[in-house]
């Protein structure tokens, strides 16, 4: 295996919204490399549809404190309130900055940035739905990704495209660099660097039906988890109410923000029963549970009574064309129905990881529940957990999170690099990875231990046992299944032994991270004997503030996780019952 060595002051792993925003901040101040397994513009930020919230007050009176209130309430009081304040306050400048860099937001007649309604966002702490989501039709993420990449191109940022980071070297608690695999050649690259930001996105591929890209396999969290860094709040995984039936392709909440209605098989607007005040615009955890309940009570539509309808037929062709062009095209392409005329079959789809690599508000990675900072290592975006989303993220707050905390990661890298001297990484730093790869190449391929078969069983079992509703029984069952899958993974084999674009080899290593993410998720879920936000235990249906107003920290231990806890940082909002 050829080994190539590079030296940089800072490295950013990932070129989605979070990684690119960090790069823009850091690049002018250091020798910086952005390493990304996909071409930057292929990152899943580009799939985001509905919008990005900020209290610009372009349509009606608004205030970032209301945004903060909604975020905290939406989080089921698990978000850290000082972090939420930062998110909502800095949101305004973050949106304006993107506009200045060229982001083509949709506009109001007066030329200002257009804003729309979204789930869980209200004015005056719950009075009525708020026009807060800034958007560019239903391709807001695409525009953010393009704009940030364009900015990086104009700055001459150095990219290593289609390089996959697969290891980090930390010695005596100090980061020495990262090791990457070059997809086009199979060469190993040692990146000597003292500051690394992980912005590798989510891990929705632990479930079968998901809105996430094939590439979202939790690499960043996995790499750190294997080095003993904990993962925070892994039991909180968001299921978006409206995925296209069976495919999981997302139909943005913007559809309901613009007036779309959910209906059961009888055409009933069932959300009126579950959230009388804001109905279809209730937060995602509630709507997903409502749909799952409708289905389990026999109110689902279709031959297997396993979906409900998203009805847009009353919105009119003009609104649909102007404001929801892409998602209605998805329906035409993949379901072959005309959403202007017919309601769309939908079911909840695995969507967003609230949990991830623990960080403080400066995007510095924490190595334990006491808040010890791991010097030189940062994380931002969906891979990280600050925590601003707590037990349930509000729509539009992730695009915000990636730019606000992506920027902060970049700033922290600059601070660290200016205060420290370059270190040196040893030539043997890549030995572990080389060995791992050589093992995969040497082992003879068998179907039983193929990547795809193990992954399929993982995704199907997680879907079955650890999705919207969970119980001690389903989680214990899944723990056993995960143990078996881990045993099988120890013998995983690949058919392709080539060097050039060996994506099977890469998928084999990604499967390791998917197993890690699943193990941490299930262990954390099993230990949380309450229901809060997206984590819904049928055997513990109530929220338990006395015992569980705390973040979980899962440490890798053999094939499961050791759990520790950290208190939630409260602020001006006292926990109350979450009703809408």
């Amino acid at each position, binding site marked *: 295996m050829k080994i190539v060595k590079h030296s940089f002051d800072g490295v950013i792993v990932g070129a989605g919204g979070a990684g690119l925003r960090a790069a823009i901040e850091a690049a002018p101040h250091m020798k910086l490399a952005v390493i990304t397994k*996909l*071409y930057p*513009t*292929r*990152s*899943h930020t*580009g*799939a985001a549809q509905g919008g990005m919230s900020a209290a610009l007050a372009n349509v009606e009176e608004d205030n970032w404190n209301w945004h903060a209130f909604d975020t905290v309430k939406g989080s089921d009081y698990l978000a850290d309130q000082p972090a939420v304040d930062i998110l909502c306050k800095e949101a305004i*400048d973050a*949106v*304006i900055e993107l*506009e*200045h*860099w*060229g982001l*083509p*937001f*949709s*506009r*109001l*007649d*007066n*030329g*200002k*940035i257009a804003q729309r309604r979204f789930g869980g966002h209200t004015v005056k702490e719950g009075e009525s739905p708020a026009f807060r989501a800034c958007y*560019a039709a239903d*391709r807001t993420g*695409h*525009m953010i990704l*393009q704009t940030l990449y*364009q*900015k990086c*191109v*104009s700055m001459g940022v150095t990219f290593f495209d289609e390089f996959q980071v697969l290891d980090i070297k930390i010695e005596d608690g100090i980061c020495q660099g990262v090791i990457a695999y070059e997809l*086009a050649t199979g060469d190993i690259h040692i990146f000597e660097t003292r500051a690394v930001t992980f912005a590798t996105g989510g891990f929705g591929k632990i479930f079968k039906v998901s809105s996430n*890209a*094939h*590439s979202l396999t939790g690499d960043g969290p996995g790499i750190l988890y294997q080095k003993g860094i904990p993962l925070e709040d892994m039991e909180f995984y968001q299921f978006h109410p409206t995925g296209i039936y069976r*495919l999981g*392709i997302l139909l943005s909440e913007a559809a309901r923000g613009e007036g779309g209605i959910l209906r059961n098989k009888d055409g009933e607007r069932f959300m009126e029963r579950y959230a009388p005040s804001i109905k279809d615009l209730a937060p995602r955890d509630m709507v997903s549970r409502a749909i799952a309940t409708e289905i389990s009570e026999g109110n689902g539509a279709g031959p297997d009574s396993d979906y409900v309808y998203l009805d847009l037929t009353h919105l009119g062709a003009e609104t649909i064309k102007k404001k929801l062009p*892409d998602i209605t095209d*998805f329906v035409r*392409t*993949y379901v072959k129905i005309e959403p202007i005329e017919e309601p769309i079959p939908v079911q909840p789809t695995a969507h967003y990881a609230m949990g991830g690599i623990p960080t403080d508000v400066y995007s510095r990675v924490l190595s334990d529940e006491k808040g010890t900072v791991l010097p030189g290592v940062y994380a931002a975006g969906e891979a990280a957990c600050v925590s601003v989303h707590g037990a349930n993220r509000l729509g539009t707050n992730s695009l915000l999170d990636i730019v606000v905390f992506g920027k902060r990661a970049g700033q922290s890298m600059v601070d660290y690099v200016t205060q420290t001297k370059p270190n040196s990484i040893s030539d043997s730093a890549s030995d572990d990875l080389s060995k791992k790869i050589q093992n995969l190449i040497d082992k003879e*391929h068998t*179907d039983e231990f*193929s*990547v*795809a*078969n193990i992954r399929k069983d993982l995704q199907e079992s997680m879907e079955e046992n650890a999705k919207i509703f969970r119980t001690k029984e389903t989680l214990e069952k899944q723990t056993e299944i995960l143990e078996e899958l881990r045993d099988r993974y120890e013998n995983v084999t*690949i*058919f*392709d032994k*080539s*060097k*050039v*674009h*060996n*994506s*099977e080899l890469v998928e084999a290593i990604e499967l390791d991270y998917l197993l890690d993410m699943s193990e941490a998720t299930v262990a954390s879920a099993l230990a949380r004997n309450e229901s809060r936000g997206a984590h819904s235990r049928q055997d513990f249906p109530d929220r338990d503030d006395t015992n569980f107003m705390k973040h979980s920290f899962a440490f890798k231990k053999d094939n499961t996780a050791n759990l520790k806890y950290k208190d939630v940082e409260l602020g001006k909002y006292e926990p109350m019952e979450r009703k809408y």
Partner: protein
Amino acid sequence: MDINLKILRYDPESDRKGHWENYIVDAEPEERILDLLHKIKWFEDGSLSFRRSCAHGVCGSDAMVINGENMLACQVLVKEVGNPIKIEPIRGLPVVKDLIVDMEPFFDSYKKVMPYLINEKEPGDRERLQSPEDRDKFEDTTKCILCAACTTSCPVFWTADTYVGPAAIVNAHRFVFDSRDEGTKQRLEILKDVNGAFRCRTAFNCTSACPRGIQVTKAIEDIKRETLLNS
């Protein structure tokens, strides 16, 4: 039902040139071509290589030639292309392995047209204003996902890979017609070049190839007109 896939394969480590391989895959009419490629890769022949990520037509990874036309494999269903299905890598860019081509020349052309907002004026602390009408003028070209389907369907590009190609022009258009941008002169200067917009012979292949429904040929015509008006 059984679908017969013929895939043009090339392994740089063992082949001197590409060769066709046949696969029979059991598939539903509603499945995506990408799903079929995955079935082969995951359960039959792990060495088959192609790019993909989002699986629903928004990331631009999997443009390929399907039954002679450029498409995204994740955006076409089995029932739309018939049986058998012939799949080849997109043309005009060097093939690296199987359906994977070298995208560097494509991105180099993209970078040539200064694909970023140019405006030296201090914008103040609020957004720049833009009327919905002005915003509409470049709406179509903001949709580009840089999949290269257009450029690699262009007969001019096949014979002259120095031509910047439709995708780069689309991305220039996105800024030239943005009322906030002030880089029009510089960009048009670049596109006036022998390898710029005037190489286009309006074959319209690009427009039919674009998976985002962008009026690519029209965008090129807009740029040609703007260049003439500005000179």
